């Protein structure tokens, strides 16, 4: 049991390490190659743009966004809490009986009531 625990999270840790090392390695490699003279350094305003293609950014990064997005952030937090309950349920779903299925159905239906309320009141429409 314990061996399995360390093995599984060890694999996750290796994954995390690789995810960290790839961008760091790219930046370090770029720096090393520019030092060696392999990579020419020719800065231009086009290269400094956030994207090479697509729309030209309008306004600065500190622009104020529409307040309506805040509702989505709040909903994200609450549905995050819901997902936390779904997780242990999914892990054990096969061993559990019909009772657990009904239980989770009630749980989700109660939360769906809020969604139905928002829909009914027209809060989901973008105005």
């Amino acid at each position: 049991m314990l061996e399995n625990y360390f093995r599984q999270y060890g694999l996750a840790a290796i994954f995390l390490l690789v995810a960290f090392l790839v961008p760091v390695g790219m930046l370090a490699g770029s720096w090393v190659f520019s030092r060696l003279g392999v990579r020419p350094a020719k800065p231009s305003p086009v290269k400094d743009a956030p994207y090479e293609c697509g729309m030209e950014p309008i306004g600065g990064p500190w622009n104020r966004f529409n307040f309506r997005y805040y509702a989505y952030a709040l909903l994200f937090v609450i549905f995050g809490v819901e997902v936390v309950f779904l997780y242990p349920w999914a892990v054990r779903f096969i061993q559990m009986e019909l009772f657990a299925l009904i239980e989770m159905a009630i749980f989700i239906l109660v939360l769906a009531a809020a969604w139905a309320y928002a829909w009914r009141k027209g809060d989901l429409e973008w105005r």
Partner: protein
Amino acid sequence: MSLYLFALLAFLTLAGGLGVVSTRNVVHAALYLLLSLLAVAGIYLILFAEFLALVQVLIYGGAVVIVVLFAIMLTRSSEYPRISDNRQWPLALVAALGLLGVLAAAFLAAPIQITQLQSPDFTALSGSLFTKWAVPFEIASLVLLVALIGAIIIARAGKNER
């Protein structure tokens, strides 16, 4: 092995916390907070608290930091992109030192118990949650329902003010 892991994660937690209070950019402060919270999730994993680590990553690392970043995005943060001065820092220092004192006293007063290294079963936890604690679980959905409707109403109030 776990001592080194703990040292690394504790270092990351403290470095993130220091970054939050020392950086002059609010967005950077939120990202340092994310680092700190994820390192705490790692500490939970060392303690075999898998579910708690999951909650930490999903709720704190995911949702709460997103809300903080949204709050920065949606407010007039452009007027104060850099936190130059905060006059409340002496008060914050007193509060932090007081909390440190209380925690240190509690830690020193309690006898240190060495328990057996064990891994609690994740499936056992979910088994008791959906059988023994079924009613509190359903009540949690009602609490979440109230929170959802509250969030919808708060968002609507903001819309009318514009």
